[in-house]
């Protein structure tokens, strides 16, 4: 009997020990995660704080402004910033719409149809994707310059280039279409629907997540594009997007007067995009994980 008690006690103790170690490890992990979160948030907190600093406009070694104010935001709207913002917004909206249509056409076709050139076409695009895109920019810039879509007219030029090659990014949505059972198509075909009707009546209503994912990524990309937009606007302020315009503010000769304005601009650009992203986060996560699993 005595023995039995000790056994029970031992089990009990081990149980308590396990619980204790788990509690300790969970606490450690909590602390680690909080530290990570702080590290990840710091730049965003700093940039917001600095956008309200008005005692000087240079980069400084302290975080909390000595004098608070919204002068930077007021100056921002007196500069060319609203024009850049509008440019980027137009490019982003139009690109998102057209690119989504193109990507869906491409991925749906490659997922559903079995034609002779399908495999060679996919392999060809894989190889094309291995060329550094930077190279093609030089010539695309010259071509756009030839047809007058650079500098002040950069917006349509940018849209044209973003949209034109977007068919190459079909992987994620093809992976999604692959998961929709083919029997649905076949049933509709038996009922006399044409291929086009199958797409518009059956597949599209089922594809909400991937459509939203495609729109979201297509909408976000122009906000960050920097290299090609700089080529195309080529020093003409009215044709710049936010990235190009604000990059110039951090040049050595401008940084002392425009640094806090850059911070304010960053906040203004980031807030709507981030809010939109956060609202549609679910779809983004689905797309990203799906894309990685299927390769």
């Amino acid at each position, binding site marked *: 009997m005595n023995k039995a008690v000790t056994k029970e006690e031992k089990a009990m103790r081990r149980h308590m020990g396990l619980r204790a170690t788990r509690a300790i490890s969970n606490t450690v992990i909590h602390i680690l995660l909080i530290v990570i979160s702080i590290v990840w948030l710091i730049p965003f907190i700093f*940039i917001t704080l600095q956008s309200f600093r008005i005692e000087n406009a240079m980069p400084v070694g302290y975080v909390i402004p000595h004098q608070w104010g919204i002068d930077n935001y007021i100056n921002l709207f007196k500069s060319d910033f609203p024009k850049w913002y509008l440019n980027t917004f137009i490019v982003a909206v139009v690109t998102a719409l057209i690119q989504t249509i193109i990507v869906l056409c491409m991925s749906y076709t490659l997922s559903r149809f079995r034609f002779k050139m399908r495999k060679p076409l996919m392999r060809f695009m894989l190889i094309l994707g291995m060329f550094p895109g930077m190279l093609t920019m030089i010539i695309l810039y010259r071509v756009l310059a030839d047809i007058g879509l650079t500098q002040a007219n950069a917006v349509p030029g940018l849209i044209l280039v973003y949209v034109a090659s977007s068919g190459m990014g079909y992987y994620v949505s093809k992976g999604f279409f692959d998961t929709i059972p083919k029997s649905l198509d076949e049933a509709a075909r038996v009922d006399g629907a044409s291929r086009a009707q199958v797409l518009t009546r059956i597949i599209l209503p089922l594809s909400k997540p991937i459509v939203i994912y495609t729109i979201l990524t297509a909408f976000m990309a122009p906000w960050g594009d920097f290299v090609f937009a700089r080529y195309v606007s080529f020093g003409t302020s009215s044709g710049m997007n936010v990235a190009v315009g604000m990059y110039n503010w951090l040049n050595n000769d401008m940084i002392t007067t425009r640094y806090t304005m850059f911070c304010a601009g960053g906040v203004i650009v980031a807030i709507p995009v981030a809010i939109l992203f956060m609202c549609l986060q679910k779809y983004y996560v689905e797309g990203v994980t799906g894309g*990685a699993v299927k390769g």
Partner: protein
Amino acid sequence: MKTYSELEYLRLSKWQKFWYKFARFFCVVIPNGIKNGVFAIGRFFKKLGLGIAHECKDIVTTFIYGDWKTKVSYLVMGFGCIARGQILRGILFFLFEGIFIAYMILYGGYWLGMLPSLGKLGPAEEYDEVLDTFVVKYHDNSFRILLYGVLTIFFIIAFIYTWRVNIKQNKIAEGIIKSGKKLKSGKDDLRSLVDDNFHKTLLALPLTGIIVFTVLPIIFMILVAFTNYDGTHNGYTNNLFHWVGMDNFNTILSWDVGTGGSVQSYAATFGEILLWTLIWAFFATFTNYFLGMFVAMMINKKGIRFKKGFRTILVLTIAIPQFISLLYVSKMFSLNGIVNGILKDLGWIKDAIDFWGSTANNGLLARVMVIVLNIWIGIPYLMLIATGILMNIPQDLYESSKIDGAGAWKQYTKITLPYMLFITGPYLLTSFTSNMNNFNVIYLLTGGAPTNAAASAASGSVGYTDLLITWLFKITTGAESQYNLASVIGILVFIAVAVISLVVYGVLPSVKNEEDFQ
């Protein structure tokens, strides 16, 4: 190299196993990958040749055995179709031929004729009667000649293809009429575009875009690598450019240090940057991969609260455009930036640390910094991906391993890691190659700084954190604008990426044995 059977392999010690695998990878797997790649290219060309030969034979036999309508169609495209009542098709064929001939006579002939020389007459001072003085007049434009020359060749290929289709149509139509069936009318053709041939309708727009805005520029830039197109030969306003054969490749790959007083050869510079590109890609990929997986596992652990909150905070870095976050972080670490300010206030350092400018140890500090800051950028993506995959690992694997006495570490190395690697193999490969071309992170963080003095003397401004892709960009934007050398670098990057992809793709377990984990 000696190949062990499975039993012999199992008898080896842990270290022997490791060395065996290691040696095998370099002695067997990589050569095999390259061999397979070469064979695949060979097979492709063999197939292409046989296909063309077959088509030619078919064209000849169709002409010999076809009726007069078919024979006329060899000259007047679409004639057979119209004569047999397929008006719509016939008109389209005929129109295409008309446009092609008109284009070739009006423009195509000129572009094509100029292509071998890329222009004969450069800008020159000529007497102008109106102004009564000598003014510079511009003539041929090498850039346009090359561009439109390539476009004309595309057009010719498209024409030959259409001509071939036109002949095939005749042959098929003859066959259908002989068997007594009805030919398809124009209405049927239109209907098939939304039905049986719907894929052609869907692909028309995307493929046109890709051909015009991706394929054509790439071919153009490959051709530029064989010309002397640069700032002093811009093809129009100062000098024409011409074909120079392999000269640019010889320049980039030469160890010559003498000319122009340069201290470092192009080949050495190229090798240095390529090495750093590979090191960067390796660390950028794998630090993100393992740390991202680690963070995902921490967040997903049982008993952790605010899972969603932590995830959202991390995802914020994806949501905010990179040019804001990267540029701002870059300035945070600048000489008079916040990080130095805080460290000084804390009394940890006396003089500001020059994160981006220090050239000690080949810019080691800046190199480590970009890798560390890239973790900040990359972990959220990996966290999302890993979360999705971790949730799919069957929980009973963990439970049964626990009963067998496996600890957390053992579970990780024996279950989680193999599963993750298996699923994300292709993703790892693509992220490695896209890191090799990761322009944004490097350019926005450092712009390539700190300057690599020795390499810069050879070619423009080269920094220690410059990747091949940022180097390429700098070469094209500097005063010299060496587009020709940039193209060569681009081609070499392509070759590097293609070889790595080909070899790794061949050895990926998820490609070889797809069923393992299913």
